[in-house]
């Protein structure tokens, strides 16, 4: 896929479409399926602002917990049930669904939506064969968030780009009493612990598959990754870490119970928000760690809005997608909730905005993290797949969750790291056979 052609094509189509779009105002009822994350709930709360612009479009919300939502929309799109007009999906689903022809191309969004403003790494992740199949609502990489006060007390200074070894040292020094040196995801799931472990594996030189699609969990690199992770978590992590996902860790960090937390960059605005966080003024940021192998352990993800091909209200749905992912929406949130709370990570213009960068201390680190992730070349050794913390094939969600359960079991002390790796290898090999590789 040529990026430049797609850009040219996109803007040409966008101009044509914007002329057409102004001719009639769309109407109808649209059903939007979304995740119950903070930014989406805010979007839902701003529905009336959307209706001020499009009074003839009635919006129905289906806000569900992530796992429920995912199985719900996947089921619906795969059977062409047509229950939803806008779906909130991620960079994992978009290429697969787009390839299957299940999504409506968004190349014809109006010119003022300004597709060229979208960060290239994000945009390429949502484009298949030159067609943009989803509009990024917010995007994230991962980075280190740490407590500046505890780091100082430990007599250490966090470098901008730490190594894993430094993280281990710092975690050891910061663990004391009620404070756990490091919080990492342990909850099983392809989008939970496996997002962290896959990205972490990349920085240890590990990969999911070699170029012949053979599972690689029997390699030394994976053993190193898992052993390091287990050592970190059992010695300096919180209790019950095997049940902690993003939300659990966020709440721990906000309560001041974590020294460091390596997770999604979007968390930065939550942990620095004095309304929710007890440590809002004591948080520093650094790039995700590496091992000097040329890849850092940071991922790339964009929660995006897509219009399924089964929708009967394509025009109205597109109008909503364009509105919710526009610069105007960003300005609207900034006006109502402050600049630090706007959905981050999707547009260059946001990072060029001095108001934003001064309000959001994490802006620079977020942008650098996003730009340093490369979904097309995620690993040290070459791989046949794209995706940093996932493998963009339909079977991945299934087997990666099972692999994640093996590692979660190991973290909970129910099996050894070697057993977990052995089983991970078996599960993955078996699933790939079933898929016909």
């Amino acid at each position: 896929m040529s990026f430049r052609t797609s850009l040219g094509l996109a803007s040409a189509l966008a101009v044509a479409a914007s002329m057409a779009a102004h001719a009639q105002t769309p109407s109808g009822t649209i059903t939007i399926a979304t995740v119950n994350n903070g930014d989406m709930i805010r979007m839902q709360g701003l529905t009336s602002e959307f209706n001020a612009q499009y009074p003839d479009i009635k919006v129905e919300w289906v806000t569900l917990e992530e796992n429920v939502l995912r199985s719900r929309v996947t089921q619906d799109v795969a059977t062409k049930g047509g229950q939803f007009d806008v779906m909130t999906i991620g960079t994992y689903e978009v290429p697969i669904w787009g390839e299957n022809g299940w999504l409506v191309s968004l190349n014809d969004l109006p010119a003022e939506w300004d597709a060229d403003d979208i960060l290239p790494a994000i945009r390429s992740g949502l484009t298949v064969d030159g067609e943009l199949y989803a509009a990024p609502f917010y995007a994230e990489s991962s980075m280190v968030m740490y407590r500046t006060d505890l780091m100082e007390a430990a007599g250490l200074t966090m470098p901008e780009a730490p190594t894993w070894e430094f993280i281990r040292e710092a975690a050891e020094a910061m663990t004391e009493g009620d404070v756990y040196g490091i919080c990492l995801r342990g909850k099983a799931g392809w989008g939970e612990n496996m997002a962290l472990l896959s990205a972490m594996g990349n920085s240890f030189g590990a990969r999911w598959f070699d170029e012949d699609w053979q599972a690689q969990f029997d390699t030394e690199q994976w053993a190193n990754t898992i052993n390091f992770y287990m050592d970190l978590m059992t010695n300096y992590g919180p209790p019950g870490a095997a049940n902690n996902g993003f939300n659990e860790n966020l709440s721990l960090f906000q309560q001041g119970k974590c020294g460091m937390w390596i997770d999604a960059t979007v968390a930065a605005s939550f942990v620095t928000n004095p309304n929710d966080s007890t440590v809002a003024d004591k948080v520093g940021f650094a790039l995700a760690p590496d091992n000097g192998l040329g890849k850092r352990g940071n991922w790339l993800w964009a929660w995006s809005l897509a219009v399924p091909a089964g929708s009967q209200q394509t025009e109205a749905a597109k109008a909503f997608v364009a509105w919710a992912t526009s610069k105007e929406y960003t300005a609207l949130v900034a006006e109502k909730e402050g600049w630090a709370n706007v959905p981050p990570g999707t547009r260059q213009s946001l990072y060029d905005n001095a108001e934003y960068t001064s309000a959001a201390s994490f802006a620079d680190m977020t942008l650098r993290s996003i730009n340093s992730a490369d979904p097309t070349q995620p690993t040290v050794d070459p791989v046949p797949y794209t995706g940093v913390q996932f493998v963009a094939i339909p079977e991945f969600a299934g087997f990666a969750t099972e692999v994640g359960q093996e590692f979660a079991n190991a973290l909970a002390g129910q099996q050894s790291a070697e057993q977990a790796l052995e089983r991970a290898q078996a599960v993955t090999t078996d699933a790939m056979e079933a898929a016909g590789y």
Partner: protein
Amino acid sequence: MARAVTPRRKAVNTALAWAVGLLIFFPILWTILTSFKTEATAIADPPVWLFFDWTLENYAVVQERSDYSRFLWNSIIIAGGSTLLGLIIAIPAAWSMAFVPSRFTKDILLWMLSTKMLPAVGVLYPIYLIFIQFGLLDTRIGLTVVIMFINLPIIVWMLYTYFKEIPGEILEAARMDGATLREEILYVLTPMAIPGIASTVLLNVILAWNEAFWTLNLTAAKAAPLTAFIASYSSPEGLFYAKLSAASTMAIAPILILGWFSQKQLVRGLTFGAVK
């Protein structure tokens, strides 16, 4: 049955029973209490029991995000509708099995129960495809029918066991007096079986209200009942115990209140023929 006991023994019984009762009820009580706390108080260490600033804020937030009355209405229609529909089909069947038994009655009854053992997840795809075919997705009527099917065996069985305890002679006497079959069922049998029917209705409303697989997977925005309402409050970002508690309280309160008011009826008929 009043057995004579010493006041001392009665006091011991009372204390013990209350302790156990409160222990069993505690998770619900704690949820209700937490729903009136702020998020920070909700996770306070040590836990705060009664003396905190009671707030209705969580309820306001939840109501603002999801229109409670719509979910509630859908729950009521689906639970009520499926029970009513189930009764219409089950009363004649139960009558037939109880008063005109055949060689196969017991087998039919047990077979009916065995249809409940079909694992729901295993048939999700077929049902979903059928629903698309008939345009039933996200409709109350579609969901009502599915829930009715799920509970029908239980309805038939409860009614059957209840009907069996009614002496057939009374029905026969009515027939001698020239009552038609319809009159016999409507005016003689049904009034006598009211307690049994009442508890059947209650049990099925409870089961339908709490059904969380089909109600979640076959609905989107229009027909979504309270089970879907809850699914948008489980583990969101940040602190959420208080909001989750408020949403939980809202979801279970109607059925809890109904259950408490009618527990006598529920208990009376909930025997499945276990009492002879």
